[in-house]
């Protein structure tokens, strides 16, 4: 039996109201922004990146020794260095540890979790740490509609060979060549390929359907759907596409307060679900990564709350205005200038 034993999350405390971004740009009709259901999105501070978020979430999740670290991200500040290795050292883990980074757009986080589940189930190790972390906000072009929702966050789970808070029943995945959102090597900003691919969500709907359809669970049996959330309206939309009960997305809603947390999104949603799921509840984790791919994991909650403190992290909010967000996220490239000790 493989289960999720403990969890921890990290979300930047600084947030910006979408109304403030709209006031700066006035490039999208107000009702379109309101329809996203996102009040404010996370703004990573000037000293925050994917590695610091991952380390914070992992530190809170870590309650026991682990022998592997899987870190899923599409925004590693290093193009070649393993962020998982840095995080493992930050946590003070023994150097006898297997580490790897996984990159699969917004589903990097569930790819990491599935790898951890496979690691434990195969007997390669006893306990594995899976982390999903992203700072999409740093990769949204100024004035791009993506800037409204691109947030940041991290979530980490310890997976072990015991029941824990939820036991893993089955997993299924899907992937095709569907170019809807991407960032090329050498570019900073994530691009969409236009309304025909992105606004209609054709990739999203197809892939979640394909993955969920292979789980072998009746749609009406789903108690909690923990799903990737580019915005707060998407969970309800996916529930409708799959035919699962609308109320199953309630416990896992996180995007309304922090926006799109990228590869952390579905895992943050799962952490919030497992903080409150009842014994025997059917939980489905469902991710979507642009490009495009989906993972679905069927789990049975044991009724032991995982204690991730997700609500506490979501509630820890400090509002910042648009100029502050511009400075924090370094939206304008400054001169390469000669500096002294002080700036």
């Amino acid at each position: 039996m493989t289960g999720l034993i403990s969890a921890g999350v990290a979300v930047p405390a600084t947030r910006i109201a979408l109304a403030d971004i709209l006031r700066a740009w006035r490039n999208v009709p107000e009702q379109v922004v309101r329809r996203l259901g996102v009040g404010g999105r996370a703004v990573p501070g000037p000293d925050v990146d994917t590695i610091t978020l991952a380390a914070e979430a992992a530190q809170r999740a870590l309650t026991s020794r682990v022998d592997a670290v899987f870190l899923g991200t599409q925004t590693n500040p290093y193009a070649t260095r393993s962020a998982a290795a840095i995080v493992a050292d930050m946590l003070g883990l023994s150097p006898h540890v297997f580490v790897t980074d996984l990159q699969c757009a917004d589903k990097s986080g569930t790819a990491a979790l599935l790898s951890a589940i496979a690691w434990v189930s195969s007997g390669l190790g006893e306990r594995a740490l899976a982390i999903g972390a992203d700072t999409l906000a740093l990769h949204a072009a100024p004035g791009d509609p993506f800037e409204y929702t691109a947030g940041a966050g991290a979530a980490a789970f310890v997976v072990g060979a015991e029941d824990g808070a939820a036991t893993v029943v089955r997993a299924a995945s899907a992937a095709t060549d569907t170019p809807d959102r991407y960032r090329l090597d050498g570019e900073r900003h994530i691009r969409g390929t236009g309304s025909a691919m992105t606004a209609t969500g054709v990739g999203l709907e197809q892939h979640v359907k394909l993955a969920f359809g292979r789980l072998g669970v009746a749609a009406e049996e789903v108690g909690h759907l923990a799903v990737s959330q580019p915005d707060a309206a998407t969970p309800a939309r996916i529930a409708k596409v799959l035919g699962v009960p609308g109320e199953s997305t309630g416990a896992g809603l996180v995007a309304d307060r922090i926006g799109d947390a990228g590869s952390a999104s579905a895992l943050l949603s799962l952490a919030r679900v497992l903080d409150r799921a009842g014994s025997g509840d059917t939980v489905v984790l469902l991710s979507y990564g642009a490009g495009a791919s989906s993972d679905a994991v069927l789990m049975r909650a044991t009724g032991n709350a995982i204690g991730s403190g997700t609500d506490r992290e979501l509630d820890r909010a400090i509002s910042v205005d648009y100029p502050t967000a511009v400075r924090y996220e370094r939206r304008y490239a400054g001169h390469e200038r000669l500096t002294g000790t002080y700036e």
Partner: protein
Amino acid sequence: MWAPSEPIPRINTASGARGWRNRHGRYRLVGTVCGACEAVHFPARRICPSCRSADLAEKPLSRTGKVVCAAEDHSPLVGHGGRPVRPFAIIELDNGPSVLAELVDVRTVTPGQRVELVIRKWRRESNGLYEYGYKFRELP
């Protein structure tokens, strides 16, 4: 590689090797405890400043503590331009010495406030690497 729009400071920060050697201190407040007089030091020492003993063992200090006193820094060091004003505090750790550290995600700082360690970016070293280290945030 995307341009991180974070200029690499053209000043001499600590060498990459020095930054690497002291990382356990930066990440996890690993200090030293004296086998002879039991004094606890941070940062880590090679010789005990109290009794000159060389019999020192590494010891991670507590990740939580409380603010003793605080002040604001208005002249940001290189790499800290994003926050024009940074609160600093002397923090008395729960099981050891006090450390001077930056506070993050705080609105007001009051002595006695409980705080916990979080790892954040300190700056970019002159060789281009990111240097990460301890900062503190309020405990709820």
